[in-house]
């Protein structure tokens, strides 16, 4: 990867031979091209083309059933004819599967990656420039072009200022991107008037005007049209998480979304490569993409593609399965629907909903492709302008990643120097760091922020690449599973933990194999380290022992709440843990205030005192930043809710009226209410909301407690107190069984503690909460005003 993609001058001819191996990526694209246009399939998309099944070289067409019927055999012999006549193919009643198809001058094989046209706009089909224009002079051809690593734009060497003589070694970023990175506003050169900027297929793909897919199987329908079943690739923007900072410009994700599309909509080949191939293929022209992860469109998660899963050479295991899968499907389809197209459609739509709408569905007419993962933002949301309060609510969400992490600079610096000290040199010295601190003090956040920063440093070449493995102890089913996860992260293979332990032991004690990419330093972050404690602590022993091995290149960062975890461990483990500790103390109130206001920077929604009040309150209790953010968010919600009430009702509240400008700030009162909600225990709410009789029972208990001084009382005694209370306040006295029922309910919600057993009459009762709480909750009760007398 240390060479800029250079465009050599030789252009291998596109149409040299349809039989040329498509497995090797073409290096055609950004060269001075003798052919002004690449006109493979763009002449007329509507006109059906005659496909040429090539079979001489691959005689087996993936037989489906062990006992092929007569018709099938005939069909196979037919298809082995290089140019089957249209009439014979029409007569066939079943699907025929091919391994390789020559279609419109291009040769397509199972496992290839292709561009797929999107048929909505005619524009996208009108042209397919094979050669990119220079971003400065807007002409194609000429001399060698260089590609910017950031914006992927092409530049003539001579057009650059100052002009370059040759393609430089290492990464190269164009002047525009560099200036933009510095924060300057740059005007990129505009194309001359009247000349539309031609976009290459790559650009269209990356702006999702064109799609890429991987061919899983090729077949011909009974009506003679050629189809392929493909797996879609998607660009990072189309995933649920959007484009992430670590995504490469040319990165794609393989999805698990199958669809059948007609051969016609295939444009041409592209090359989606695995990381290691991508590294080698840095000079391979424009249609090269990078794919490291598979994306599950239903669950929106990513899975690393393993080496043996793919690649045309060693795809025995992985491909076999999918191939069989396809076969099963087709054999089913064969039996069910010899002639009925409808049934097939039903079946397939049942199998995958997006299929129906996917590219070129059966009739060849529905082109409204439903691409995976795209959810259109509803119109009303888009045109709605967010108010400051809503913005504040959004930024105060715990899930929102803050732009900066204030108040933890010292700790982050320490982590940075620790990690850098461990990995910056060729010889990675294994070490351990133990980070401890109470919850909500930014431990994990700081480490992750440091890692992001280091990763960007890797991107600029200041740091050697490293692997970062993050594990949360809470997410492990059992402590031993950590071996499994580490091994999967390192190698991509999933094995049992025993095996994984064996492999990891081998790897860390003997040093990794000679393969270069395996030899990167590994940073292992274990959150909630204390959950890895087993009875004999062997998991922790192993993990902390590996860094002390000579060739391990392992750096372990453990995070936990308990300060004295190393002291609780066996001495042999704490000896291996080393002495590197880092303490995250609870935040004090200026720090909390700074954290909140840094999140709210630019949003005018909170009164200054309100923030201070919230942070003081939290700092006095726990110093937990999460708590403080939650309180502020809740306060903003309360304020927002009040603001959005119909205007008539808000007239009544004076606080809004005082806001003459219509601006509404979150005030102290809102914070107070939010704090009340957050800090107040739920039992007060329950007491406030329980039934009339329940309240009477509680008051009677408090009354009895004050009178007698005993915490416990029998149910019988309580009943007589209640009856006397009711009669003296002109309340209808409840029946004995009703009383019992309500008492049971209070007991179930643990407001009252009931003695075990079924001695109803003499059962002993006791208030679970202090009598002050009951008094507080029932003091101003509107439906039973006489209660306060007894409190």
């Amino acid at each position: 990867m240390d060479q800029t993609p250079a465009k050599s001058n030789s252009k291998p001819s596109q149409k040299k031979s349809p039989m040329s191996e498509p497995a090797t990526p073409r290096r055609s694209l950004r060269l001075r091209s003798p052919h002004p246009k690449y006109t493979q399939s763009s002449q007329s998309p509507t006109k059906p083309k005659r496909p040429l099944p090539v079979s001489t070289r691959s005689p087996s067409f993936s037989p489906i059933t062990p006992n092929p019927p007569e018709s099938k055999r005939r069909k196979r012999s037919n298809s082995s004819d290089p140019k089957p006549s249209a009439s014979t193919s029409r007569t066939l009643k079943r699907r025929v599967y091919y391994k390789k198809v020559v279609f419109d001058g291009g040769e397509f094989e199972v496992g290839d990656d292709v561009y797929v046209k999107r048929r909505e706009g005619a524009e996208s089909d009108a042209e397919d420039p094979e050669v990119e224009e220079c971003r400065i002079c807007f002409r194609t051809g000429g001399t060698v072009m260089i590609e910017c690593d950031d914006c992927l734009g092409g530049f003539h060497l001579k057009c650059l200022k100052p002009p370059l003589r040759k393609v430089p070694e290492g990464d190269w970023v164009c002047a525009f991107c560099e200036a933009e990175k510095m924060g300057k506003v740059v005007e990129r050169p505009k194309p001359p008037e009247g000349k539309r900027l031609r976009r290459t297929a790559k650009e269209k793909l990356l702006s999702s005007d064109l799609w890429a897919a991987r061919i899983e199987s090729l077949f011909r329908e009974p009506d003679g049209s050629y189809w392929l079943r493909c797996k879609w690739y998607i660009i990072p923007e189309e995933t649920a998480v959007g484009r992430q900072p670590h995504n490469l410009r040319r990165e794609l994700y393989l999805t698990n979304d199958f669809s059948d599309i007609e051969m016609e909509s295939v444009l041409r080949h592209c090359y989606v490569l695995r990381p290691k191939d991508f590294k080698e293929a840095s000079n391979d022209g424009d249609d090269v993409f990078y794919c490291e992860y598979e994306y599950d469109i239903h669950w929106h998660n990513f899975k690393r593609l393993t080496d043996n899963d793919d690649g045309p050479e060693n795809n025995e295991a992985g491909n076999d399965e999918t191939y069989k899968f396809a076969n099963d499907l087709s054999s089913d389809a064969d039996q069910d629907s010899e002639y009925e197209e409808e049934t097939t459609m039903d079946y397939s739509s049942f199998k995958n909903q997006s299929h129906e709408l996917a590219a070129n569905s059966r009739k060849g007419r529905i082109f409204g492709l439903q691409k995976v993962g795209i959810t259109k933002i509803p119109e009303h949301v888009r045109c709605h302008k967010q108010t400051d309060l809503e913005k504040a609510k959004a930024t105060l969400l715990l899930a929102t990643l803050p732009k900066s992490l204030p108040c933890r600079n010292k700790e982050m610096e320490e982590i940075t120097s620790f990690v850098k000290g461990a990995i910056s040199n060729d010889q990675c010295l294994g070490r351990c760091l133990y980070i401890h601190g109470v919850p909500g003090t930014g431990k994990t956040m700081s480490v992750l922020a440091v890692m992001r920063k280091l990763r960007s440093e890797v991107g600029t070449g200041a740091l050697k690449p490293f692997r970062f493995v993050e594990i949360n102890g809470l997410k492990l089913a059992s402590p031993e599973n950590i071996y499994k996860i580490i091994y999967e992260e390192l190698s991509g293979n999933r094995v049992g933990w025993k095996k994984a332990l064996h492999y990891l032991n081998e790897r860390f004690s003997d040093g990794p194999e000679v393969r270069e990419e395996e030899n990167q330093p590994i940073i292992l972050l274990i959150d909630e380290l204390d959950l890895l404690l087993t009875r004999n602590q062997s998991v922790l022993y192993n993990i902390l022992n590996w860094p002390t091995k000579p060739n391990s290149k392992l750096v372990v960062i453990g995070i936990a709440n308990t300060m004295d975890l190393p002291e609780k461990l066996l001495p042999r483990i704490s000896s291996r843990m080393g002495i590197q500790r880092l303490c995250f103390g609870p935040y004090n109130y200026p720090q909390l205030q700074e954290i909140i206001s840094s999140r709210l920077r630019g949003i005018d929604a909170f009164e200054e005192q309100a923030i201070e009040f919230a942070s003081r309150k939290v700092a006095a209790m726990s110093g937990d930043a999460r708590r403080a953010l939650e309180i502020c968010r809740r306060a903003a919600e309360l304020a927002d809710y009040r603001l959005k009430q119909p205007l008539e009702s808000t007239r009544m509240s004076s606080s809004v009226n005082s806001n003459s400008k219509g601006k509404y700030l979150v005030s102290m009162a809102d914070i107070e209410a939010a704090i009340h909600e957050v800090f107040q225990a739920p039992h007060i709410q329950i007491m406030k909301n329980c039934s009339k009789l329940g309240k009477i029972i509680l008051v009677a208990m408090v009354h009895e407690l004050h009178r007698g001084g005993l915490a416990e009382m029998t149910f019988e005694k309580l009943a007589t107190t209640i009856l006397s209370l009711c009669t003296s306040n002109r309340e209808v006295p409840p029946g004995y069984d009703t009383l019992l029922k309500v008492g049971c309910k209070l007991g179930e919600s643990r407001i009252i503690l009931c003695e075990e057993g079924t001695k109803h009459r003499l059962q002993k009762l006791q208030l679970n909460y202090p009598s002050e709480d009951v008094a507080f909750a029932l003091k101003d009760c509107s439906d039973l005003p006489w209660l306060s007398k007894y409190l």
Partner: protein
Amino acid sequence: MPTLRSASNPSSSPSYPKQRGGVSTPNKKRSRSKSTESTPIDARSPAKWSSPRRSNGGVGEICNGIVYSNLSKSPRKRLYDDHVEKPKWNPRDPAQMLAVKEALHVATAPANVVCREEEQKRVLEFCKACIEQEKAGSLYVCGCPGTGKTLSIDKVKDSLVLWSGEEGLQSPDVLAINCTSLTNTSEIFSKIVAKFHSRKKINGRLSVLQHLQHLFSQRHSSSRRMILIIVDEIDYLVTKDRAVLHDLFMLTTFPFSRCILIGIANAIDLADRFLPKLESLNCKPIVVTFRAYSKDQILKIIQERLMVLGYNVFQPLALEFCARKVAAASGDMRRALGVCRSAIEVLEAELRNASQEQEVDIVTFDHMDIALSKAFKSAVVDIILALPQHQQIILCATVKLFRHCKRKATTIGELNRSYSEICKSTQIPAAGTLEFSSMCSVLSDQGLLKLGQSKEEKLRRVTLQIDTSDIIFAFKGNRFFQSCLEQ
């Protein structure tokens, strides 16, 4: 222990009578360190038999005082004269810095293990005897963590193979296992069998252990290759019925057994505790004890490691300070190396911040002091002062409760009552019960309180993990808490 003493006494006691004398009582320690001061130690002298493991931290302080008072004394300076001629170390040079860090890293095994010659010799002699007589034997190596057990045995293994090559004897097979990497305790037998018979098929009817026992109880005409089995962290093999450990040691008692078993662990009495049966069979393993390193040994080992560099990295005083502190606390070599490394990092950070004109090219006493205080400080007072106010009140309430009732434990319910009393008297709104118990658990996470288990949240037992005097000391300057405590 007794075995070791009897073995090592004849060799060591005549030469260092003074050293062997006073190690057990504190005042004698003082005298010992005085003797150090009067007769400077040559850093290159062979290992001294000094103290066994010392546990209390008080020794370190005593030593400290001596170091401070000695700062200006001349004999010590003369002692390190030979170091001065070396070229200067340039900490700004990343290559040199890396070399130093590498030399001090735990993973780099030094070329020769100093200060453990005696133990190595014993183990080696034992193995040699076993191989020469072609008889089985077992050995148990114990010692505190970080005392070079695994490293020494590794060296012994290498030299044993070398020796057998020189003597023309058949060199033994070596199998080194770390028991933590076993997924199942009895897996160890299959590993041994695999080492024996890589080619021969194992009889399906017998279990692996039975196969081994069968193998060792018959005379085999085939090769009499010995097998050296090194079992690290052997106490992980202790199961409920101790069968695995027992069977493992029993392998050496079979008439035609060919294995030399070396077990390594921390516990000094593992054999006595878990293998009482072996004693009756008269095949108790010989015990070799690795004692915690003394100050001089630590010093010597670090110097040995730094020897390869060819320049001075540490001030001699700084190194000695580090050695003293570590020896006083645990005698753990890993810790000493870690402290040295963090002292280098302190220097690095200083260089990054400091301006160019101020040249620091050696790790001084001050750097080492910072690093040591990072490693050994007990920050209880700082932690208490950094706590949120309500948690401080809880600690205050605990102290008050214990002071009044002269008890050592209370429950959460009681503590809550005491806490709300304080809150009421100082007119601070008290936290609710749920909030209170979550604060208590945070405190217990930080190691200040200890919470017991109970079905009822209210009835959970609370004890203080730290001294009450620490809390009182921490609140000394704060009038608010003073008044709380006085009530």
